[in-house]
């Protein structure tokens, strides 16, 4: 009797063993990015999620490319 229950339990477990397995193939959905998510450039240890600070830094760098303004400032 006990052996029968044990065997039935084991057989049941074997039968559902594959159910918990995750799909190992990427399912592609047209027009939808399938990769890893990425963070915002200001979301790091340097800018500490300070979006305005990051934008200010980038703007200063971009405006620094204008040598007319750089020469006039001197």
């Amino acid at each position, binding site marked *: 009797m006990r052996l029968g229950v044990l065997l039935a339990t084991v057989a049941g477990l074997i039968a559902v063993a594959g159910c918990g397995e995750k799909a190992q193939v*990427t399912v*592609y*959905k*047209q*027009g*939808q*990015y*399938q*990769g*890893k*998510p*990425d*963070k*915002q*450039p*200001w*979301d*790091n*240890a*340097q*800018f500490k999620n300070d979006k305005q*600070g*990051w*934008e200010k*830094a*980038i*703007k200063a*760098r*971009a*405006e620094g*490319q*204008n*040598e*007319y303004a750089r020469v006039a400032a001197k």
Partner: protein
Amino acid sequence: MARMKFLADAERCIECNGCVTACKQEHEIPWGVNRRRVVTMNDGVPGEKSISVACMHCSDAPCMAVCPVDCFYKTSEGVVLHDKDLCIGCGYCFYACPFGAPQFPQDGAFGLRGKMDKCTFCAGGPETDFSDAEFRKYGRNRLAEGKLPACAEMCATKALLGGDGDVVADIYRHRVLTRGKGSEVWGWGTAYGAPQKPGAQPPGGKS
């Protein structure tokens, strides 16, 4: 929100290849892969013109449209990036790109194509910022450091401008008005002429 763009000024480029070298050095790009290159038209003829070419991070990027595995995404700053873990190296993006930007390193025997590599606008990729994995796969993440692409910042004559489209366009407008010629911007219409499309974006991530 900044909308990142490149602007190549053919009137100023002196074909020094400083941008190419800066890119190679910054990201430790292997042999055979050129994320940026300088193209000269009418080379050797008086009046020759050179331009620096790389991924322009198009408004409506054709590479994103043709990718069969949808490994491309666009950040909220308009930078077109891709996930190398998904890329299968099929080369469709290379055929679609009007700038010839996608590069394929040789990977293994018989000239087997590796995963696509291209300019990231120095914005890294979908790995933890400043991590070894990010640097190895995509190169340095200068944008997250508050810096602009190395090629544009290194350009001696400022022929190559990079950054927020409005700021870059303002600089160029001032330049054209001052010199009184050369208002044509190579590749600008091709890259940014189409209306901005959101494109595929990561869920809960960059925009």
